């Protein structure tokens, strides 16, 4: 495999004295799609919130493109080309679709490319162009996810973390969004899919990491992992 774009070493994240991530380590190769799966409460979202700078770690190290980014604030990490699509889309619901996308290009580097990025996003999601003047709060769940993904793309990132984008969406919508993610990846963006739906993420990703109780307990090429291995890692029994 090629060189790693993101590495996480022995990361621990607490909420008060609640240990959400407890010594997790993983590595994401350049240009790949990696899926991170696990049951609810396994620590997946917290791990990547920490990578993106939304929460601070207690110990451990996060390296992005060879640079130590541990504990940096979120706005500095996004400026380095690592963008999070947060769980539940978290669009700015009182702003229009286009204003949301405008906010996506907030970093200095991204502002110059605003026009080009906007064109690309509208090509990828034509429905967003149709609804560009609508408040994002008035959109359907699937369309809001598209806004959230488009907003992340506006930053022209090298890596996107997708946190449970399929949650609560209809299967046909999920299928469509996954197809877009493959397109985005083919365009050179490294992707991490944080998912509960193991089978779907296995089909999409080159590498799969399984989390259990705050740790990464299994990691391998998606094609090499057996169902038994994954099940054991996923449930712990």
């Amino acid at each position: 495999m090629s060189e790693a774009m993101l590495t996480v070493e022995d990361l621990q994240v607490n909420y008060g004295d609640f240990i959400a991530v407890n010594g997790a380590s993983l590595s994401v190769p350049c240009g790949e799609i990696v899926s991170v799966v696990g049951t609810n409460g396994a620590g997946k979202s917290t791990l990547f919130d920490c990578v993106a700078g939304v929460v601070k770690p207690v110990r451990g190290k996060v390296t992005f493109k060879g640079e130590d980014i541990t504990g940096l604030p979120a706005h500095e990490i996004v400026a380095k080309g690592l963008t999070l699509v947060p769980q539940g889309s978290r669009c700015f619901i009182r702003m229009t679709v286009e204003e949301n996308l405008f906010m996506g290009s907030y970093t200095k580097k991204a502002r110059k490319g605003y026009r080009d990025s906007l064109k690309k996003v509208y090509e990828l999601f034509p429905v967003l162009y149709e609804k560009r003047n609508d408040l994002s709060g008035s959109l359907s769940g699937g369309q809001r996810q598209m806004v959230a993904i488009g907003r992340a793309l506006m930053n022209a990132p090298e890596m996107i973390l997708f946190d449970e984008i399929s949650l609560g969406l209809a299967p046909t919508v999920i299928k469509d969004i996954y197809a877009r993610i493959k397109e985005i990846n083919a365009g050179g963006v490294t992707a991490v899919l944080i998912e509960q739906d193991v089978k779907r993420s296995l089909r999409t990703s080159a590498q799969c990491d399984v989390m259990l109780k705050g740790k990464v307990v299994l990691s391998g090429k998606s094609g090499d992992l057996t169902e038994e291995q994954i099940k054991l890692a996923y449930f712990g029994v």
Partner: protein
Amino acid sequence: MAQALINGILLGGLYAIVGVGMSIIFGIVKLTNLAHGDFVILGAYLSLAVSTATGLHPFASFAIVLPVMFGLGFAIQRTMVNRLLTRGDEPPLLVMFGLSIIIQNLLLQFFSADAQHLRSTYDIGSIKIGDTGAIIPLMFLIDCIIGVAIILALNMFMKKTYVGNAIRAVSDDNTAARIMGVNVPLVYGVAMGVAMVTAALAGVLVGMTYTIYPTSGSQYLIISFGVVVIGGMGSIKGTLVAGLIFGLAQLLGSYFLGTSLQLLAGYVIILVMLAVKPRGLFAK
């Protein structure tokens, strides 16, 4: 009656600019700025000091007063309020209350308790409307035009610039704004700076229109409250309509009930709004 209507409408523009800063801070920092009225009066006194020292016209004093007030707002937010925001609602509230007392006493110290007025030639001018007997007081007209212009400009700033959009985005979803690259504490500082600038603009207009005292702040805090409650927190356009309603309520109240009940009419409108539409006319 016609005169009360004219004055009420024109006053609406002034009230909108008095309240808009409070509305911004309500909507974005989620803070009830109890010192907002004093910020307005502080702006007026700063202008007075500049005019006295340099002989500049009150409008020309903006060149000095506005940057100073922006810096002051930014500094207050960054050094005092930001670090308290994680500790619940009360500590920042108390800080602003404390600031209110400090400002009032500093003004007393430096300017005495005497009435002051920002002098200009507009005070005495007026425009007659046909032969109805009603007049448009020139200063009221200027208040209204400047007030409306600033509200519209502020609305453009919020919609068209990165900083303005960032301010709105933070008020919508703080965390999402952070992962888009927004430095939230910095934006809070800028928002407070902008609120202070609007307070200063309002203060100068107030000082040119009426007489002011170091303790006048509470009167304008109540007007701000009224505008925020009627217009809806954080809605800039709402403040304009709310200013109009509040201004009309006061002047018509004064016309029908007598001057002594002018303030009461305003409060009644606030109470009715709280009972009927507690989130304001333009709450989203």
